[in-house]
């Protein structure tokens, strides 16, 4: 079955530290990949997405992610985090060829940034 794995449940960083959150997806052909952020009490907000082309994707708020097909990975990175990045981050995948369009989400990674 198609699945998405996020290995880190909770990450705690100090401001200005670099961030990398892991995401792996199961094999299943052509895949679209997404990172969503959910700030406390708010809805899911799209950070970035990968459909095709350049595997290094730049998103909002200084985030980027790299699609590595050989590793089935789509890790999220940010060179220098801020306290305002404290949120939960969800990786999601969509297999457009076979599915009816439903996103498969990972369990999420909670990021806490200490000021």
């Amino acid at each position: 079955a198609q699945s998405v794995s996020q290995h880190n449940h909770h990450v705690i960083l100090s401001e200005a530290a670099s961030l990398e959150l892991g995401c792996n997806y199961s094999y299943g052909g052509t895949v679209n990949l997404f990172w969503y952020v959910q700030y406390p009490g708010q809805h899911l907000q799209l950070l970035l997405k990968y459909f095709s082309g350049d595997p290094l994707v730049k998103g909002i708020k200084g985030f980027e992610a790299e699609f590595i097909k050989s590793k089935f990975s789509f890790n999220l990175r940010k060179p220098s985090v801020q306290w305002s990045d404290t949120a939960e981050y969800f990786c999601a995948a969509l297999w457009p060829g076979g599915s009816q369009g439903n996103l498969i989400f990972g369990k999420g990674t909670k990021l806490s940034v200490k000021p």
Partner: protein
Amino acid sequence: EPEVTQTPSHQVTQMGQEVILRCVPISNHLYFYWYRQILGQKVEFLVSFYNNEISEKSEIFDDQFSVERPDGSNFTLKIRSTKLEDSAMYFCASSEVRQDIGFYGYTFGSGTRLTVV
């Protein structure tokens, strides 16, 4: 930027009562979805809807749930007889489909927090 609108933002209901959660998808989108997020857990797919019928549903979407597009703009999720375990954040989403890239423009609403007491 176009938005998916959900109402209400928070609903409290007694166990056994019926609730209807409402969504207004983006106007040119043809695919509509409901997802659920129980507190502390991951976002789970419930159902997708296209051309006035359910196109896919998960195991969670049992006979207690139904969806409807009652008019040209609204997309509703009904829970017939709520249970305590239905307490969750319910997200509506919509997307379009393009021949070259498949599902596109996936957008989530802000969610309805359902609390069953």
